[in-house]
């Protein structure tokens, strides 16, 4: 069993020749996602066009006992789409249709490969928007967002992807189609849609997604405030939250990030003499935005904010945001590779943990840039490195582990929005007991007893082996 010419032929019959990539130069670019140091060339890449083709391919792979790794746009940062040895990658690159928009009832149904920003454009003319806005939204797919339960700046107010998924069409590891696409505000019976969202490709592949849309607020105002220290910006965030003067997004960029962004095509006009830039967004009715502004402005001033700019026109707002959204890529100007950590800390510890991450990295001789969703307490220490230097890569990974431990010790968690994937697999036992992990493994095995879906991610293998040993009738 495994990938052989009979299987390839059978897959070609189902997907057409364009849907089955077996030439090496077509497979190599799929060897990694945004976590570029983890690589494995897949045996095959499949590009189905719809649910039926996905199901047909999954049935064949089930019969051949081949491992499957689902992939959206490959922009993930935790290695969720890193292929596995001997396995097949199923990409949603040809499933890009917005199937239906119900403007009155405020939902849309899309194919999994629809790009997050394209969904946004599609509902614009209805005066609606899709709230989760990962920084990679111009490229990442809604299907990938479901797999990773992605966030974004505005999730401070609106919640992560799971808050916005109303229904799914799922193809199970056995190739069966599970249609849960009717938009459900209060799911009947077990909430399978809720379970699936954020399952990192371990339970099956979502091929169609029904999402909640929200009305575009009357007024949206983006603020940029500058600070003389990163500490001051962190303190201002805590103050805003303590005062319940909550904007819809609170983002902080440090000096190194500002420099990289200002050199890039995404130049946002952030002044380079500031040690930290805070981006805020206020939205709602004219009166509520005014009232909120009256509360926020003095709170920022107390912490020494200066150079405050406010923008309402969408082009101006987009320019201010562009720098934030392209910050990751802009760091490519500093070194060939970038490792983006993703950890969450209680917001009262924001200042201390941001300092701690900087100390950890400078102690290892690494360059760190901080750009993060401050409102969520979601840190993104960005470490620049060169993957061709194995010694440096080792220090990067060590620093990542140390930062993660520090965050957990402070009462935080492993992932804000990037998922666990390969990257934080070994950190799972720091956060969860072996009983916790065993329960998760049993849920997974209820869907996929052979553990063929995205194996080696999210759940440490040992924990899974333990459950299997304990399961009745296990060999």
């Amino acid at each position, binding site marked *: 069993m495994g990938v052989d010419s009979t299987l390839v032929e059978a897959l070609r019959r189902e997907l057409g020749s*364009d849907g089955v*990539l077996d*030439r*090496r*130069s*077509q497979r*190599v*670019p*799929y*060897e*990694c*996602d*945004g976590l*570029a140091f983890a690589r494995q060339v897949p045996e095959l*890449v499949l*590009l189905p066009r719809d649910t039926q083709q996905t199901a047909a391919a999954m049935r064949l792979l089930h019969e051949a006992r081949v491992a499957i790794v689902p992939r959206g*746009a*490959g*922009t993930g940062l935790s290695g969720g789409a890193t292929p596995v040895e001997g396995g097949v990658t199923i*990409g*949603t*690159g*040809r*499933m*890009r249709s917005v199937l239906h928009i119900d403007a009155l009832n405020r939902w849309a149904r899309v194919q999994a*490969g629809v*790009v997050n*920003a*394209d969904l946004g454009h599609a509902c614009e003319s209805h005066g609606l928007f899709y709230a989760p806005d990962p920084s*990679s939204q*111009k*490229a*990442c797919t809604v299907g990938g967002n479901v797999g990773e339960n992605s966030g974004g700046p505005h999730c401070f107010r609106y919640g992560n992807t799971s808050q916005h998924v109303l229904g799914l069409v799922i193809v199970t590891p056995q190739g069966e189609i599970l249609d849960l696409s009717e938009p459900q505000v209060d799911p009947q019976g077990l909430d399978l849609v809720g379970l699936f969202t954020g399952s990192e490709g371990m339970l099956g592949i979502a091929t169609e997604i029904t999402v909640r849309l929200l009305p575009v607020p009357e007024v949206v105002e983006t603020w940029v405030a500058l600070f003389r220290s990163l500490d001051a910006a962190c303190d201002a965030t805590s103050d805003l939250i303590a005062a319940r003067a909550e904007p819809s997004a609170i983002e902080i960029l440090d000096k190194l990030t500002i420099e990289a*962004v200002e*050199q*890039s*095509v*995404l130049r946002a006009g952030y002044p380079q003499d500031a040690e930290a830039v805070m981006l805020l967004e206020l939205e709602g009715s004219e009166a509520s935005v005014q009232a909120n502004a009256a509360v926020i402005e003095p709170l920022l001033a107390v912490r020494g904010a200066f150079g405050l700019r406010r923008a309402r026109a969408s082009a101006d707002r987009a320019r201010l945001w562009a720098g934030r959204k*392209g*910050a*990751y*890529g*802009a*760091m*490519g*100007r500093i070194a*060939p*590779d*970038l490792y983006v950590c993703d950890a969450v800390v209680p917001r009262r510890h924001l200042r201390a943990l941001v300092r701690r991450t900087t100390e950890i990295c400078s102690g290892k001789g690494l360059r760190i840039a901080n750009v993060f969703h401050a409102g969520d307490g979601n840190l993104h220490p960005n470490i620049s490195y*060169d993957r061709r230097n194995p010694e440096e890569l080792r220090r990067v990974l060590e620093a990542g582990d140390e930062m993660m431990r520090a965050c957990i010790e402070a009462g935080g968690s492993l992932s804000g929005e990037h998922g666990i994937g390969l990257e934080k697999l070994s950190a799972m036992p720091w956060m969860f007991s072996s009983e916790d992990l065993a329960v998760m493994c049993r849920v997974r095995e209820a869907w996929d007893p052979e553990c063929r879906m995205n194996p080696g991610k999210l759940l440490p293998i040992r924990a899974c082996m333990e459950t299997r040993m304990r399961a009745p009738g296990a060999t």
Partner: protein
Amino acid sequence: MDNHSLVDYAKSLDCVHCGLCLNSCPTYRITGRESSSPRGRIHLMRSVAEGAIEPDDDFAEEMDFCLLCRNCESVCPSGVRYGAMMEHTRGALEERRQRPWTARLARSIGFGILRDRMALRVTARLARLAEGTGLARLVGAPALPRHAERVLLPTHMPAEGGELARVAMLEGCVMPELLGHVQRATAQVLQRAGCTVQISPMHVCCGSLHAHNGEVKAACELARATIEAYERLTDERGNPLPLIINSAGCGSHIKEFEHLFADDETMAVRARALSGRSFDLSQFLAREPFRSRLMQRLNPKASHQGPYAWDDPCHLCHGQGVRREPRELLQAAVGDGLVPLADPESCCGSAGIYSLLRPRDSQAVLQPRIEALRASGARTLVTSNPGCQMQWEAGIRTAQLDVSVSHLAEVLERASR
């Protein structure tokens, strides 16, 4: 030759693999394939340089499939110089490629004709004759205007209403044969904006098509000839004249001549000097005092048939970063008749000679643009690159839309009569 030299490896390291380029790429959008995306192609280049894959036919095919529209550069936060990398790899691949003699002959004739005014004229005349026989349609050649349309511009055209400046204008290789009316309109608009226009009698082709298609040696020779030709067109004090270019592809290439002379500092300096005084027509006309002079003459009611839509040629918006100026001029020329076109910065599929080399792919890239044009309700599509102009015309004919295509210069000329 080792495989490392196929790739501009240092530039490939600028890519951090973030993927923000994917959705901007026309070939990724039509195939959904990572290997046909900018990130995927850079990944392939890097893999070749690092010895992980062989530069086989599949690799070459992915490199050829790229339109070189450079939309990815406009969205890349890392500032990856994708266009330059692709030109490098295509050039190196071409050197070692074993083409059948027929293909080699066709290439050398095709790229050779572009360099020679007499050959261009003869070819145009032959092609015009062949049109009568229906042969040209059969091979998909563009329609040629009649002989009277194909006269070359005079070398000296005086400013109207008092000279504000003297400028050189790029006449180009295929433009006089295929789009003579655009050349005349360009010169007239410049004259009305107060410029005395000079044409270099010795210059033919800037070599942009050669550079984009792996003919590096010819591209270097043509760049050198271009630099020399326009150094000779000077004002009374001996300073070289600004060079006005109405073809986005040529403009983008001329502004980047410097890359061709990485090993020749003297030529690189001269290339930089020419880049510094080269302007897209819209860029130049948006500057004072020419802008005011032209604005006085514009009468929005006098122009073609509205509503109008503006299509950004890739090598204008992505290659030269020029976006605002043509819109402002067009707005001034047609008043409120300008309607938005969806995705105006994405490629129409012309891409130099891509539409001739890969007609099917070119059509697939054009298709969504034709739908966007249909949805816009425009009756006149305005652009400023000869390839785009002809590509749109052919696509509009096939789709049976009632839309005409104009160069920005033509709209400005009509509105300033």
